[in-house]
């Protein structure tokens, strides 16, 4: 330790110490001269050697290099600005992507002990849901020893405040929810177990900060006042803080205590029904317990639960999956796959920009040949030159990454300006983003700076092989980016211009949520019957039917199976006979269900084709109960627009399904204009049930526009990459031409044809371009398999997409190569040959 301190004090006092050393050595000389000894050593060199013992020479050299590098960069501002721009884009895209990933999956929520929060979800071999029945939650909560606390959130359809037209999102939570998260109230108080655990406590609500600001104009006197939540009076007890961090993304606007759910939703049996999976469960791992251990204990609890309440558990394979819940997003394996893919794409952009800059540096190297030559001649070692050049690269990379950080910040600001973004999120880079940027900067500097530096230090500036590799790398990387962009654009077009298999434009779904309101199957049947009759009477509504899982609904049920070696995702659904006509799904063969029919099934065309290729599917039997196929419907991925591997099975809805059924109606004219009529029908049928009315067209467009946005972003990135590659190529070809002017002039003087001249100039680039195109296409073909899920049925080997991408790339490359090459043809032969 003492030595380190002395070393540091030497650094701080080096001026004085150097003077002392100098005086020592001078004295030595004087004395030696007196004694008649002559010493011809270089005093400066010896002093430097002595100073080396202090161990700070590297710092001196670094400062020298930085100083020199800064002068060099300042002397060619054009190159420096271009380089910083190229790098800024390459690094900025990566920083932005990582910042987003960091925000979603790495940053801990600003709640008490976020690291111990877990999400618990029901899983079995072929089914999963993130929601469980409230009694099951209570069972796990009361018996699990590996969880120190358990919270539940019950999401419900939007609720009405007083007589507002616009409803607000709402949830019920267990009273320990806010205390466990350590959330302070902005005003009033939040729920606490001691005051809000019992159904007999006075009905109370907590409002989000945003709702309080907009609906109640931020008036603090709202605390203690009574408001009506969907007609039920309740007291406002508190306001959530502005930057409240909820679990699993953004929270609702209205919060109510779980115990009072039956009060707010009249007739609901959610709190006692073992079959109504509707509560999300969160837990806090007990100190020292890992997720694995908790999963073990919960697995045995599930077995116990199955013995006591068989209806609450699917099968013997069910268990609770314990995942880390302290982040903004609960990451599923599929999301990691997507994140990895995005990461690869952004790194490709960095690769293009680095290869590009590498080419520029090489061209500059020739210009600096004389300077480097002089430095080597006066005794600079190869290592020293290399270090100098690498320092310059690092300086450039640092400037570039500063620009990149700025770009990343801007991107994050834009993302965070979207509505419904939690307020606690910040666009400002945290230490992880900083660390990532530093690593990326060093990697980039190594990638674009090392090859040119090696060539320069070895005085081999004129070698073409490195240049060729750089060209191939750029072309390959931009090729991958362009192909993927083309595929996404094709997918968007496909979704917009192709038929999704059902007539979505004129559809309305009406979800009265009868099950949540405690309807028995008989009561539900009566309600739905009336609803259908009344809807039929509304002018403009042409057809009405019942379905359990409506298009783009809140609940999606599927299972993955293998049919004849192919992965297929099965989407089962339960429908009434009129469903196909109402939805506009054609029946290809067979018939629809008969009223009250049992043990019958209708399958989608692609399911029939895969399951029984070349056979008549009618009369075949499937499922555990050996149900007979009575019809084949057209493919309509109503709950999996983007999944080309989806196949549907429709079963006739039975009496027990009635409380969970949703009404779909087909209307002539603007579907939105029917909302008031539908509302008044439901009011008169049962004022307690407030159905959720949705226009399928809007949901569909929302789905498609999201894809369109992704396609636009990727295309923009792809075009930027190609433009960068083009600019890089222009530079390299122009440089080659300028290097070989004399040779070209001789060729022209001897009568070479323009084509021969051009090919002489461009030959060294044609192979790298072809190799780059081949590599890029292969990589895209292999890598794009991961994209299948977002391609909405477009093949990942879609020939049109590939052709378009390759055509655009080839055109840009050709222009970039020919533009500067033409200069070779316009040479003033006489002057070139007279020159020196």
């Amino acid at each position, binding site marked *: 330790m*003492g*030595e380190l301190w002395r070393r540091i004090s030497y650094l701080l006092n080096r001026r004085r110490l150097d003077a002392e050393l100098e*005086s020592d*050595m001078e*004295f*030595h000389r004087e004395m030696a001269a007196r004694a008649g000894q002559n*010493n011809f050593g270089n005093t400066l060199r010896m002093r430097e*050697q002595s100073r080396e*013992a202090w161990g700070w020479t590297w710092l001196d050299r670094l400062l020298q290099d930085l100083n020199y590098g800064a002068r060099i960069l300042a002397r060619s501002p054009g190159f420096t600005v271009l380089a910083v721009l190229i790098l800024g884009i390459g690094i900025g895209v990566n920083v932005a992507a990582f910042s987003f990933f960091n925000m979603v999956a790495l940053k801990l929520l600003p709640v008490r002990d976020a690291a111990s929060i877990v999400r618990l979800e029901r899983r079995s071999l072929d089914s999963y849901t993130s929601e469980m029945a409230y009694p099951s939650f209570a069972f796990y909560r009361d018996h699990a020893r590996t969880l120190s606390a358990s919270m539940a959130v019950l999401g419900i359809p939007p609720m009405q405040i007083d007589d507002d037209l616009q409803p607000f999102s709402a949830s019920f939570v267990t009273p320990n929810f806010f205390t466990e998260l350590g959330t302070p109230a902005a005003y009033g108080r939040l729920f606490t177990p001691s005051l809000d655990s019992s159904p007999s406590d006075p009905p109370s609500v907590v409002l989000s900060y945003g709702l309080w600001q907009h609906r109640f104009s931020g008036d603090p006197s709202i605390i203690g006042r009574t408001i009506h939540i969907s007609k039920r009076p309740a007291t406002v007890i508190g306001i959530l803080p502005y930057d409240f961090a909820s679990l699993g993304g953004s929270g609702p606007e209205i919060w109510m205590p779980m115990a009072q759910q039956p009060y707010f939703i009249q007739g609901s049996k959610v709190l006692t029904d073992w079959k109504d999976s509707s509560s999300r469960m969160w837990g806090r791992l007990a100190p020292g317990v890992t997720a694995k251990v908790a999963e073990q204990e919960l697995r045995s609890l599930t077995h116990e639960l199955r013995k006591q309440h068989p209806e609450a558990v699917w099968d013997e394979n069910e268990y609770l999956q314990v995942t880390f819940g302290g982040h903004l997003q609960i990451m599923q394996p599929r999301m990691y796959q997507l994140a990895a893919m995005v990461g690869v794409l952004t790194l490709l952009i960095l690769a293009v920009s680095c290869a590009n800059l590498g080419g520029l540096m090489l061209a500059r190297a020739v210009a600096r040949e004389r300077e480097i030559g002089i430095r080597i001649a006066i005794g600079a070692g190869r290592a020293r030159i290399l270090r100098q050049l690498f320092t310059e690269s690092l300086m450039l990379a640092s400037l570039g990454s500063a620009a990149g950080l700025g770009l990343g910040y801007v991107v994050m600001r834009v993302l965070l300006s979207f509505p419904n973004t939690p307020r606690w999120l910040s666009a400002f880079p945290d230490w992880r983003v900083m660390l990532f940027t530093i690593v990326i900067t060093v990697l980039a500097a190594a990638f674009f700076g090392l090859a040119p530096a090696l060539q320069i230090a070895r005085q081999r500036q004129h070698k073409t092989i490195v240049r060729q590799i750089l060209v191939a790398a750029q072309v390959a990387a931009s090729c991958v980016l362009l192909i993927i962009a083309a595929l996404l654009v094709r997918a968007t077009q496909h979704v917009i211009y192709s038929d999704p298999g059902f007539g979505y434009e004129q559809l309305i779904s009406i979800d009265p949520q009868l099950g949540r309101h405690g309807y028995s199957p008989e009561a539900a049947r009566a309600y739905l019957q009336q609803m259908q009759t009344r809807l039929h009477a509304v002018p403009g509504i042409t057809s009405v039917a019942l379905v359990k899982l409506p298009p783009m609904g809140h609940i999606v049920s599927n299972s993955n199976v293998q049919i004849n070696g192919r992965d297929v995702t099965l989407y089962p659904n339960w429908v009434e006979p009129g469903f196909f006509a109402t939805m506009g799904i054609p029946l290809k063969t067979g018939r629809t269900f008969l009223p009250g029919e049992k043990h019958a099934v209708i399958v989608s065309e692609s399911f029939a084709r895969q399951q029984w290729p070349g056979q008549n599917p009618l009369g075949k039997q499937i499922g555990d109960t050996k149900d007979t196929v009575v019809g084949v419907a057209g493919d309509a991925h109503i709950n999996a627009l983007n999944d080309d591997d989806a196949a549907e099975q429709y079963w006739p809805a039975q009496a027990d399904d009635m409380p969970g059924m949703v009404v779909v109606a087909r209307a002539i004219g603007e579907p939105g204009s029917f909302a008031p009529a539908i509302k008044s029908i439901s009011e008169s049928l049962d004022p307690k049930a407030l159905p959720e009315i949705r226009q399928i067209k809007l949901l569909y467009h929302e789905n498609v526009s999201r894809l369109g946005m992704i396609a636009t972003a990727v295309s923009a990135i792809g075009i930027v990459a190609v433009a960068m590659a083009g600019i890089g190529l222009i530079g390299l070809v122009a440089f080659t031409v300028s290097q070989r002017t004399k040779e070209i002039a001789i060729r022209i003087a001897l009568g070479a044809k323009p084509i021969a001249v051009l090919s002489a100039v461009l030959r060294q680039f044609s192979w790298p371009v072809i190799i780059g195109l081949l590599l890029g296409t292969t990589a895209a073909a292999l890598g794009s398999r991961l994209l299948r899920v977002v391609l909405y049925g477009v093949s990942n080997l879609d020939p049109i997409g590939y052709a378009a991408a390759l055509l655009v790339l080839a055109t840009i490359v050709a222009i970039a190569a020919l533009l500067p090459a033409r200069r070779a043809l316009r040479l003033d032969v006489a002057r070139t040959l007279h020159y020196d």
Partner: protein
Amino acid sequence: MPPGALPMLILRVLHSGSLHGYAIAQRIHVLSSEVLAVEEGLLYPTLQKMLLKGWVTADWGVSETNRKVRFYKLTSQGRAQLKAELAGYDRITQAIQDILRTA
């Protein structure tokens, strides 16, 4: 001179009192009956290393020619180091001599 011997010699020479750089070189030269000559280019880097290690310290003094110059002085750490090096050196030379005699 074998590598690593110089610090030991310097430590030994300084054991009897503080000296300036030139005097250290002179003393080694004289004591070795003019066999060992310590060059400037070796002496001062070695002294810097020893200062860093904390074996010696340097203080201003006045030379016999009336010039302000730094005198190097052994520290307690330096004394311990000298002891250790001498012991090590004795063992090695003993071993080498054993081999030379008997092999």
